[in-house]
């Protein structure tokens, strides 16, 4: 169907537009301004580099520590609450890092309830006792680990579930004790998947702006903001963004390599039986404790605190909040529709003509998921500002009234950024939906006398509906949570819930930030629960039994 070159050409043009911001930032890697580099190097680069590396290292260790044991326990052992934990452990994924960061800051600060209680209980006052400083590198590492470990958990769990139980039994029949077989078989077999999950978590770490800014840790992302806003230096900001990009590219390569490995590492046949290792007594209590820690710290405490603030302490919600919510929801919906439409066009272009340029275009367009919002924002501002200047010159030449910043100062820039960032998510869902419609279905429809339009209507639309709705929903929620790109690109006086929550929190009005935050968390729960449902559906035999 649609056997025209038009679709292919259109797809390549879309992909070119989508990859424009990356190409622009990447060009700063090559055409580096020596003096500027020198200046950055002398002043801030060292600090950014050290902090970013420490952050990566810390979060890497943190997510492995939280993600792998929980994944192993919930997939290989049986203990009270195992089934419940297996999905509850995904919940922290719904909490954006900047929200958990300021919630814990509010809880653990000097004036927060915890320290106040300590003072009241012991009679000590300021300076008499030691309490750890949450606004620190260590604090940021803890916060990011608490909300990003589900990436490792998900990938590791999938790998453990795919492993043949026989593998461990083969180990035993060859003279290995159960625990030794697990250590030398189950873990190495899951390693590629664990590393893929780790690289996703680290990409999110590099992309984070809200947490590190709020906790006063200078990294590349905060540096980009400071350079751009504080000094108004777009070139230097782009230069910093380019350095950050280099890190991201390394992580993307690591992730893709691991995913390829993971394909070979998964057993040919999925497990026939689910023989779980029964844990009883103290071992069962340990397992429950290990699973409870990330769940309580990563979701239950922050969500409860936000809820309490929002219900009992925050200013009553007024017209402002309605406007805010309307802005957020309509913007997110618009972005989701645009993104999914583009994803559908690209997917169909690939299906009709799976030729090299199209495949490359899709790969390029799908790169955005790894890009920090700050890089995308700077990469969009530079070309749009240039275009705006040209437009203004044109208007002046034609003696029309100046239109203002038609592109870079409007929602166009924001929608562009969201599309770049989230097209990969939409592409993933749409393409997996399209893969289910094998070409033989088209041929079958054709052989029964249906024209391409009828095939589209009677076969494709019903089969694709679910995947398309999923794509719209996931992009919608992601846009709603997005912070850094929105902060940079939003039009003057245009606020979203994420931005407003962040601004209120930055002004130390944590309590008033709570209603918008809890709203974001609740909406964020939807895709997490859907994710769980889709995993359950894929392995029905396991969940029927346990």
């Amino acid at each position: 169907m649609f056997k025209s070159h038009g679709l292919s050409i259109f797809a390549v043009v879309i992909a070119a537009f989508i990859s424009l911001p990356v190409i622009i930032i990447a060009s700063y890697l090559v055409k580096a301004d020596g003096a500027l580099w020198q200046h950055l190097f002398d002043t801030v680069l060292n600090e950014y580099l050290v902090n970013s590396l420490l952050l990566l290292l810390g979060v890497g260790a943190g997510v492995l520590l939280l993600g792998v044991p929980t994944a192993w326990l919930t997939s290989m052992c049986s203990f009270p609450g195992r089934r419940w934990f297996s999905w509850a452990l995904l919940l922290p994924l719904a909490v954006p890092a900047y929200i958990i960061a300021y919630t814990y800051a509010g809880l653990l600060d000097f004036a927060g309830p915890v320290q106040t209680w300590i003072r009241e209980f012991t009679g000590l006052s300021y300076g008499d006792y030691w309490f750890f400083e949450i606004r620190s590198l260590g604090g940021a590492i803890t916060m990011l680990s608490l909300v990003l470990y589900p990436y490792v958990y998900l990938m590791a769990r999938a790998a453990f579930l795919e492993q043949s139980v026989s593998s461990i039994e083969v180990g035993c029949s060859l003279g290995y004790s159960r625990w030794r077989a697990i250590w030398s078989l189950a873990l190495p077999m899951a390693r590629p998947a664990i590393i893929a999950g780790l690289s996703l978590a680290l990409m999110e770490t590099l992309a984070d702006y809200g947490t590190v800014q709020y906790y006063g840790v200078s990294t590349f992302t905060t540096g980009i903001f400071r350079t751009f806003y504080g000094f108004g230096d777009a070139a230097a900001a782009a230069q910093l963004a380019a350095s950050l990009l280099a890190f991201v590219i390394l992580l993307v390569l690591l992730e893709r390599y691991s995913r390829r490995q993971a394909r070979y590492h998964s057993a040919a046949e999925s497990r026939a039986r689910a023989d779980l290792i029964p844990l009883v007594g103290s071992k069962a209590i340990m397992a429950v404790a290990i699973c409870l820690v990330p769940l309580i710290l990563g979701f239950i405490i922050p969500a409860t605190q936000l809820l309490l603030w929002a219900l009992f302490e925050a200013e009553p919600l007024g017209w402002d909040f309605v406007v805010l919510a309307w802005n957020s929801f309509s913007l997110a919906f618009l972005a989701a529709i645009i993104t999914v439409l583009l994803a559908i066009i690209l997917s169909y272009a690939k299906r009709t003509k799976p030729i090299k340029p199209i495949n490359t275009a899709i790969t390029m367009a799908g790169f955005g998921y790894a890009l920090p919002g700050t890089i995308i924002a700077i990469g969009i501002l530079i070309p749009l500002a240039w275009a705006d200047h040209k437009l203004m010159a044109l208007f002046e030449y034609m003696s029309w009234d100046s239109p203002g910043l038609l592109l870079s100062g409007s929602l166009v820039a924001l929608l562009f950024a969201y599309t770049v960032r989230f097209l990969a998510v939409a592409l993933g869902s749409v393409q997996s939906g399209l893969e289910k419609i094998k070409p033989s279905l088209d041929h079958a429809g054709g052989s029964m006398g249906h024209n391409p339009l009828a095939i589209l209507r009677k076969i494709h639309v019903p089969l694709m509906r679910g995947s398309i709705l999923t794509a719209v929903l996931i992009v919608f929620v992601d846009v709603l949570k997005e912070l850094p790109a929105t902060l940079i690109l939003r039009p003057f006086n245009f606020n979203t819930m994420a931005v407003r929550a962040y601004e209120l929190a930055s002004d130390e009005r944590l309590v008033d930030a709570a209603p918008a935050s809890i709203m974001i968390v609740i909406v964020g729960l939807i895709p997490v629960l859907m994710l769980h449902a889709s995993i359950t559906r894929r392995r029905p035999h396991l969940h029927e039994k346990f």
Partner: protein
Amino acid sequence: MTMSFDNSDHHLLVNKVSIAYGQHTIVQDVSLAVAVGEIGCLLGPSGCGKSTLLRAIAGFVPLKSGTISLANKILANDNFCLPAENRNVGMVFQDVALFPHIDIAANVAFGLHHWPKPQQMQRVEELLDLVGLNGYQDRYPHALSGGQQQRIALARAIAPKPSLLLLDEPFSGLDAMLREELVPEVSAILRHEKIPGLLVTHDQTEAFTMADHVAVMNQGRIEQWDTAYNIYHKPDGRFVADFIGEGDFLACNVSSTTCVESPIGHLCSDRIHGFAVGDKAEVFIRPDDVLHLDGSPITGRIISKRFRGTHFLYRVLIAGNQTLYCFADSHHNHEIGEEIGIKLSLDHLMLF
């Protein structure tokens, strides 16, 4: 049925074993024995408990009662269960379960971890020679075909020279051609290595090709533990007769100590069948007991036919309401609906 064996010259001894998951009894009062150099087989429909029994012998499932011993050493009874890793019992699994992250040599050497390195290498080469895959040492499992993977799984299991090898439906994932090739090969390898084996399968061809003794299992019990020949020709009970091969039950009246009257005439055995004269019984007729013979006084009408290359298998209706299978020479091509002559060729009677 209940059996018991004495300990002498039996290698694997399963004595009155019952296995239960909670309240649900999977295996009930089962006994069998495999001698040194023998291959035994557990044959039965899915869900009959054969895999559970095998896994109990391997050490993955505890016993409710009974004893399992190997070379006069107790492996498990109702209150003791030697861990799988200390039993020296090898196992080949249905899903192959090669370790995907290490190469073939490392897979085969996996159970040799306490051997010195040079001996390990030598043993790996010896085994790869045996399964015809020498030169594949550095490949990874995903690069091998299904049959090659199963050969490697066998090599891996017998590498540490186990005193018993368990095979859990190892051929069920393979296509028919490959199975035909692999089954006698595996049997030959086990006999060459002098490793006694116990195979679990639901395929009687596999069982008959490999095993010296076959246990036909049904609903957690062993119906018959016997040679393949006896299982086919002297089935112990209706279930075994029905489950093994094809055939039909014909109602008959016992007319003497060796003969019965059936709808297809007077049938006599070469031995005393043990039924009392005047009893009602059923005689079991195999397809190869009924031959096609033009001009025979007994005739049957063909209601379906299958051409099998070397012969025809007709389904014929005789005596108005009785259907039987009938073998015919591959040149005797008759049409459905035709009346053909049949001749019974029975040496002994299977009466129930």
